[in-house]
């Protein structure tokens, strides 16, 4: 139990993490939006983002990660679920079946932007995955350090 998820003090790791974290988060959002038409999506994007936070957790420890995240991971999980479920509802306004995707096309600056309930659902999945993984990692690391 001595090792656990105790903060690692390697200079290379610390420097690299600070650089990689924002890049990885950006990449996760890219994956989330890309999933609209191509491989990607909320689940894989959420995993990448959770990976970024897990790296930070391993290097700087649970306390620093909680400061970085600002909100409790359980809240992220809960709101992800709520988002995902809300996405099933707009179809009701138009008298269609639950889960029927609703689309909204916007013309902005010469390009067409398509917004849909599918995207809301995907964002919900994204948040739920981040919330689940970070909740687990936080719980594990805090318990291991607590037992030292």
């Amino acid at each position, binding site marked *: 139990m001595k090792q656990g998820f105790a903060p690692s003090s390697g200079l290379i790791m610390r420097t690299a993490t600070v650089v990689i974290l924002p890049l990885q988060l950006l990449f996760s959002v890219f994956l989330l939006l890309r999933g609209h038409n191509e491989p990607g999506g909320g689940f894989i994007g959420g995993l990448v983002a959770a990976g970024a936070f897990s790296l930070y957790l391993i290097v700087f420890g649970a306390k620093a990660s909680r400061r970085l995240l600002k909100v409790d991971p*359980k809240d992220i999980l809960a709101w992800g*679920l*709520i988002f995902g479920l809300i996405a099933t509802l707009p179809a009701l306004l138009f008298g269609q*079946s639950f*889960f029927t995707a609703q689309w909204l096309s916007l013309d902005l600056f010469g390009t067409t932007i398509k917004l849909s309930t599918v995207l809301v659902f995907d964002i919900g999945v994204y948040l739920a995955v981040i919330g689940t993984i970070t909740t687990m990692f936080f719980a594990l690391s805090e318990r291991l350090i607590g037992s030292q």
Partner: protein
Amino acid sequence: MNNLVFLPILIPLLAGAITLALWRSSKWQKRVSVFATLLYLTASATLAWQVSQQGYIVLQVGGWQAPFGISLVADYLASIMVVVTGIVAFTAVLYSLVTTPNTHIKFGYFPLLHILLAGVSGAFLTGDLFNLFVWFEVMLLASFGLLTLGGERAQMEGAIKYVTINLFSSALFLSAIGILYGTVGTLNMADLAVKLQDVEQQGLLNAIALMFMVSFSIKAGAFPFFFWLPASYHTPIIAVSAVFAGLLTKVGVYALYRVFGLIFIGDINFTHQILLWMGVFTMLSGVLGAASQFEIRRILSFHIISQIGYMILALAIFTPLAIAGGVFYLFHHIIVKTNLFLISGMTHLLQNTYQLKSMGGLYRERPFLAALFLIPAMSLAGLPPLSGFFAKYLVIEAGIVSQQWLATGVALFVGLLTLYSMIKIWAEAFWKAKPETLSETVKLPLWGVVPIALMAIMTLIIGFAAEPFILLSQATAEQLLNPQSYINAVLGGQP
């Protein structure tokens, strides 16, 4: 309004997410839970009312037509099960208000309970085999969580058995789904019922059918796969035990009814003969196991098994009368068994033990609670005019009519032994003098007794006004034995 079918799934899912978001305040979690289960009960009752008007309510989720999309189908059987689930959920949440320790609530008791409900109602309402698998998994994951909340040694031991055997069952279920899909190329239940009529290799179908049978029997706790149940059901807190005892095994039975009443009916002499023997041995082994136990919750757990046997027996006989008996048995048993577990929680509160040997004197001390125990206990044993009598009567009459003498004889004998077990609890815990070692009793919490009383009243209603319930069961049986109407409802009258 077809979207009504989705509400019994959506409400508990949303409630699960909201109670999770409220994890800081157990007070608000409780409020939301009571409100959500009440809403669930209302929605499911409305659904049942609509079903009784229209026969079937079908929703093609996302607007994708069957057999390509996922269909949600509410027929009599499904909507009855959802209503009973609502009753159990509401009473269990009321009971949890005062009996659930704060540590459990802190670690997500209410969110897990709601997700479990979503899984159960999803399994009842889906019309797609793979979707059924998904709901089974939702239900199982939530139940793993609920089973281990508290983290005591006995819980871990029970949970390991529970998890291992259920994962095995899921793997088997998934393999069967894969082979079935490879054979006929569809998983929509209605479409399956159509396409399996034309499959020529009956041997292959029988093999797939057996895989489904084993998988569902494990979940239902049928012979010879029941051993995980008495090993795990008595370990969590009582409200969880009660919900598990009432609902989870019945989802397995429901799946058996669905799959062997609609899909695999091509070779009844083979499949339903096996079910018959399974039912007989399930009844026997459950009741004999109970007779040897002296711990209330373990006795009750073993009785779940023996009662499951009656339901499987009813399915195996496969006449309208038998199926009606089986359906009656399903909803009667869910209410009675949940109630018995809740009562065992109250007696534990009074005497601080579940061991019959060290209990006693409850009748003199708490005559009201004793009466409340007597109603479901005697109903379980099948004493007229309580609900269990009619359930057993229908099944046994069906057995006599179709000349299954041995099975009928066993069913009667098992009824007698059930009475023995219930009288054992009565004599030991309620009737005999109070052991001197027991200290002064505590006051029973109001919200612990109200759910028990509600369910006891329901048992009385089902017993004393049995006729509408029997008519309902007969209508359900008729609908279940007429797959063509189900197929037409889901596939829209296409051949």
